């Protein structure tokens, strides 16, 4: 009984600084929380009286909704600020916002922000535990956790698997968090995309880089396709989506290069017909909706561990 979890972090800022044990702890807890979604009353009282603020300073419907549901299922009081309703558009700095939030004594602040390092800045100005829900092109740890959870559920393990991450690696926080996470968990990670979307020095993160998708797919267990983020001006890095789809889009012919039981993942939202053909996105190998379901459970696990941390970690 009461065997202590291997999780001692005050914040969840990224996968880079989590140990394999800590990641496994969150994944195990996430498994337990999955079941709550099947109950008649999808709610446990664990975080009753705790306040979770979702500070979303960059547009996001899916991740915000997922965090809101996670907080509510743990009975936390959760409030969301979004970019349009927040005062940052009125010239208030992130630190002003942080100080204002801090005055309301939240227990956990979940932050999504367009610039790398913003959650780290926040931790210097507030007492609450901070969860990074995506900072610029840096990290998106809960996405990597739900991806690891999905892979483990479908493959039974992560160590020894070959995972291909394909697309706009340079602008992708999903790619970075997954690289940190999957490498720690013992997977082989390949990244693939046009050279103009592969950041300098990516190999130093322990991955193999490919500028064609076909050799990267050879023998892969997991194929993770990234969204082409046209809103981040990735457009200037390759001619157009037509050529991108032709050279890098995942279609049934290319998927046949991976292992017969390879699974296909995508962090959403999908540009059908660009990074992935509809028949692959909606096909039998796709586990995309399972990723979404696991997102709520993983976020519950993260909130649970951080919500209790303030007492136990002192």
């Amino acid at each position, binding site marked *: *009984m009461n065997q202590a*979890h291997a999780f001692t972090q005050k914040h969840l800022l990224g996968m880079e600084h989590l140990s394999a044990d800590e990641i496994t702890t969150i994944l195990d807890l996430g498994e337990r929380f999955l*079941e709550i979604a099947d109950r*008649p009353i999808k709610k446990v009282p664990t975080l009753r009286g705790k306040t979770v603020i979702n500070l979303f300073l960059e547009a996001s419907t899916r991740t915000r909704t997922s965090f809101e549901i996670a907080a509510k299922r743990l009975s936390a009081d959760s409030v969301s600020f979004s970019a349009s309703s927040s005062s940052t558009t009125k010239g208030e700095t992130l630190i002003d916002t942080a100080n204002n939030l801090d005055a309301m004594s939240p227990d956990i602040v979940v932050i999504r922000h367009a610039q790398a390092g913003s959650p780290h800045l926040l931790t210097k100005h507030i007492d609450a535990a901070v969860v990074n829900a995506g900072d610029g092109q840096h990290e998106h740890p809960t996405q990597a956790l739900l991806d690891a959870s999905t892979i483990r559920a479908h493959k039974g393990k992560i160590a020894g698997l070959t995972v291909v991450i394909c697309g706009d690696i340079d602008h992708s926080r999903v790619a970075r968090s997954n690289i940190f996470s999957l490498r720690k968990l013992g997977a082989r990670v390949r990244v693939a995309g046009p050279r103009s979307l592969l950041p300098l020095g990516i190999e130093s993160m322990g991955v193999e880089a490919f500028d064609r998708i076909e050799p990267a797919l050879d023998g892969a267990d997991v194929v993770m396709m990234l969204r082409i983020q046209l809103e981040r001006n990735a457009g200037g890095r390759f001619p157009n989506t037509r050529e991108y789809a032709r050279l890098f889009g995942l279609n049934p012919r290319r998927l046949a290069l991976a292992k017969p039981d390879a699974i296909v993942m995508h962090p959403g939202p999908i540009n059908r017909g660009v990074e992935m053909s509809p028949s692959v996105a909606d096909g039998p190998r796709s586990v995309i909706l399972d990723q979404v379901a696991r997102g709520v459970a993983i976020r519950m696990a993260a909130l649970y561990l951080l919500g209790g941390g303030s*007492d*136990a970690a002192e």
Partner: protein
Amino acid sequence: MKLRPSPLESNLVERSEILDSVGMARVLRRLAFEVVERNGQDSYFVGIRTGGAWLAERMVRLLVEGGEKRPDLGAIDITLYRDDVFHGLPKPEIGPTELDAPIDGRTVVLVDDVLNTGRTVRAAMDVLLDYGRPRLVQLAVLIDRGRRELPIQPDFVGVRLQTTAEHSVRVMFSERGESDRVVLRERIAS
């Protein structure tokens, strides 16, 4: 790290053996049949993890061995419902809650190893009610050591003990690689 002072194993001395393995089996059998006697075939045994869940499993096995129809069996984990979950306990493990069948309209017998303050049972009732609406909820415990902090009373009791705050009741399980027994221990000043 601020941990609630937990009794150091080394500061506890064994005062007496309440039950040995034969006694434990005898008491459990009696409890199981008392439940069936009072409730008929409808009883739904739900153990509270971890000790209570093992006891509920054993009671069901004893009933089947005694020729009774196998009652429904379940196990619940109360970690997420504890009132002290964030008060200095090490991060608890959360076990799965497993229920054979819906509990709506059923007679549920919660099973726990030791009844003390009643807080565990309070949490267990909250868990149960999130899964459905039983017709009746009863409580069966192997040991009732008194010292209640909530208005909760057992319906079926194996052994009643008078204890003080210095006492610790420890139930050992073969499921955990120990030999079945129940001992009363006392804390001595270190």
